[in-house]
């Protein structure tokens, strides 16, 4: 083999190697957890909390999702760890308060607590009929609190509907109407008080029409 042909072979080898390495990178990247972007110390702390949640029989996915959300929003690693720790504590409290509910309801209950509800208020929802699911009630309750509806007003409205046996559509109807009123500029507490009076506790027979969205505003269509 002459010197020239040797150099050519080496060049070809190098190019082939680079190409193959580049093509193999996406395969490797698919297996890489996005949480590796966190500093090792923060990642370790989150792993420990996820492990603690599993050991305590709590869902760990909300913790992982919180960490991913923090990363997506480019939050500081320490802030992400704090958010995950808060989420773990909320899940623990929700478990103590609600008892043996499924993971979805437990996470929704933790969200209500995160939005400002008191554990004693959430405990009202512990005794339940078999097969009943309170996801929608918790979601609407959380939204009211996030929209600055006074805590006691929101709790009263949700418990009233819940004790009356309201179904998901009724809760959703209440939320739709209150949200529309708040968008019109009405005080959040007043909007809820007005709407809860006209909301029946029993299932509504007609589907609820969602509010008309102004141009430039996002909306979610249901299929």
């Amino acid at each position, binding site marked *: *083999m002459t010197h020239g042909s040797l150099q050519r*072979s080496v060049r*070809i*080898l190098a190019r*082939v*190697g680079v190409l*193959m*390495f580049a093509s*193999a990178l996406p*395969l*490797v990247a698919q*297996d*890489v*957890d*996005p949480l*590796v972007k966190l500093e090792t110390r923060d990642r370790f702390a989150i*792993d420990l909390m*996820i*492990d603690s949640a*599993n050991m305590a029989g709590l869902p*760990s996915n909300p913790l*992982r*999702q*919180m960490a*991913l*959300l*923090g990363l*997506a*929003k480019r*939050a500081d690693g320490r*802030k*992400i760890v704090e*958010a995950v720790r*808060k989420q773990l504590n909320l899940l623990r409290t929700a478990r103590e308060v609600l008892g043996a509910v499924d993971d979805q309801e437990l996470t*929704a209950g933790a*969200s*209500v607590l995160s*939005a400002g509800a008191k554990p004693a208020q959430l405990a009202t929802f512990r005794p339940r009929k078999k097969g009943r699911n309170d*996801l*929608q009630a918790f*979601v609407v309750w*959380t*939204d009211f*609190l*996030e*929209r600055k509806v006074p805590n006691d007003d929101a709790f009263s409205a949700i418990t009233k509907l819940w004790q009356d046996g309201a179904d*998901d*559509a009724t809760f*959703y109807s209440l939320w739709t109407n209150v949200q529309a009123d708040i968008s019109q500029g009405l005080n959040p507490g007043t909007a809820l008080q007005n709407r809860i009076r006209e909301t029946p506790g029993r299932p509504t027979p007609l589907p609820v029409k*969602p509010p008309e*969205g102004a*141009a*430039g*505003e*996002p*909306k*979610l*269509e*249901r*299929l």
Partner: protein
Amino acid sequence: MTDSELHPFVESIAREARRPVVTDPAARERIMAAVRAEPVPVRRSGVWSRLVAPRTFALSPAMGTLLAAGLVGIGVLVGNLALNRDGQSAAGRPPVAVAPQLPVSDTVVRFVYVAPRATSVYVVGDFNGWDTTKTPLSRTSQDGVWSVTLPLSAGRHIYAYVVDGSWSADPHAPLAPDDGFGHANSVKLVRGGSSL
């Protein structure tokens, strides 16, 4: 009869070669002194000598390609073995359970966003690992309606839109609790076969 007898020129060369060489008497001593000053070479075994002796390899391009492919393959395998699924070294790390997978969905949800001036709209949420580039919405009309249809598992989902790089909650969906990172998120409830 020899060649030197036949050719006087050859005979003259032979005569010169037969003449005794006269050397410097001190030269032998100088040479021996120089030899003694050299370090004694370490004796190596035959196998070691064969291993360390330089060689020249001839490699065809096809064989070189195979060799490169093999090296890359080995690298990927070693990388996968050294790193666990989370991409972190398995050594010195407590066991962590894998996050539970949500059940496969039979519910299809359409996300719609109206933004006439936007150049890109993405939906991000717990259903796509909060990947801000994974689920783009397509502009479906001239009046700025963006949409995407996704299969979602039953349950409660947190999501938001990213419009031209800016986060935006869905004002037509309930709000999720404040996550402390800034920018509100929305909640989507998906029942089996329906969504609210």
